[in-house]
């Protein structure tokens, strides 16, 4: 199982039946394939649809794409709407969960994921609204980037929102930002505590009971 699959499978366990969930572009999109189809989870794409599901092989519709511009399918019962409504869902407290990629998360649980100054200025797109507005924010990211820790003491990149994210899932660990700091909750398959600590710049709170991810 590769890193992305570990992360996607673990996050899928966080998705509650019947909830409204927004998936970021890339790795977060993979989560959908591991969510139980009988749970009636409603996936939103912020460009204006609830009910994303099923790849439309051979039935691609040029007027039906996700926020990354990729063709999507929708399930019976889907709804389409404009961008103001879509972000009303996000900011207005109607979105149960957003799952987003991350560049860095700091010890306070602050996320940076929209710009690398001097290098890459993609723009924030919907990320700032999603982090500010969703009831629950889950960060899906690899534990390191080119060998550098992504869980850091303080952010090197501009912050996405003031809000503390709710959970971080990497292939090495599950971490919950709390008032007291970053709480290590689970270890990735085959990972040791020492390995996680050596790949993390932020201080982690280590509980007595530290289970492995069950995926």
């Amino acid at each position, binding site marked *: 199982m590769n890193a992305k699959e570990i992360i996607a499978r673990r996050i899928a366990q966080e998705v509650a039946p019947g909830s409204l969930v927004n998936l970021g572009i890339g790795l977060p999109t993979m989560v959908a394939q591991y969510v139980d189809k009988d749970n009636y989870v409603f996936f939103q794409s912020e*460009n*204006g649809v609830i009910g994303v599901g099923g790849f439309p092989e051979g039935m691609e519709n040029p007027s*039906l794409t996700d926020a990354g511009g990729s063709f999507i399918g929708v399930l019976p019962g889907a709804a389409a709407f404009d*961008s*103001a409504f879509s972000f009303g869902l996000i900011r207005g407290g109607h979105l149960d969960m957003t799952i987003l990629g991350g560049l860095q998360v700091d010890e306070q649980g602050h996320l940076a994921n929209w*710009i690398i100054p001097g290098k*890459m200025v*993609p723009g924030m797109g*919907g990320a700032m609204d999603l982090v500010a507005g969703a009831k629950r924010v889950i960060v899906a990211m690899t534990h390191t980037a080119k060998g550098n820790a992504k869980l850091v003491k303080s952010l090197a990149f501009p*912050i996405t929102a003031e809000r503390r994210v709710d959970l971080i899932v990497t292939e090495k660990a599950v971490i919950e930002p709390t008032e007291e700091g970053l709480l290590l909750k689970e270890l990735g398959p085959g990972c040791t505590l020492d390995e996680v600590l050596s790949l993390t710049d932020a201080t982690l709170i280590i509980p007595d009971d530290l289970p492995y991810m069950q995926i």
Partner: protein
Amino acid sequence: MKHPLSVTEAIALIPDGSTIMIGGFMGVGSPLSLIKELVRQGKKSLCVIANDTAQEGAAIGLLIDAHSVKKVIVSHIGTNPETQRQMIAKELEVELSPQGTLAERVRAGGYGLGGILTPTGVNTLAGEGKQLVEVDGEKFLLERPLKADFALIKAQQSDYYGNLKYRLTAQNFNPLMAMAAKHVIVEVEEMLPVGCIPPDDVHTPGVLVDMIVKSEAKA
């Protein structure tokens, strides 16, 4: 009744230097025939308000490639390296606005509001230089409304009054922009007789639409 104009006639009405809103999200729901005609007629110094600049060679990206634009107000340019290149070379001014904020700014412009208060962007780069307003102990940014000289939008269907129906995720910013510009030009895939779009299915009432052109691009 509004009879469709040719793409050439409609675009000829837009002076250089105009502020134009263009519907679409990564090109989906963008008026491609109108965009191509802006390029063909060599428009210059446009200020474009849109969600993004799509990709090089595609949709709004065509205007960037042609150096028709002096400023963009968008939420995202990550998919278009040429936009980033022109920004870094200072050939193009880029104002980034969070996507939900951008949608609300356009809505505010069209709905006659003096701005909107949003929690998005508080204490981030997106909030720099903007007024912070506290309401019942919560912090919000005051974001200003956006208006335009022209809105170039795309609909699936129009009748001869200009009543519009959009399709799926091709709706996005189109209905918001139809409210926020002095002149609204819609590119449609299909013209229908008046009465063929039931009142409940009309997304944008025809009174908002000034000009209709038939799309020359494939869907």
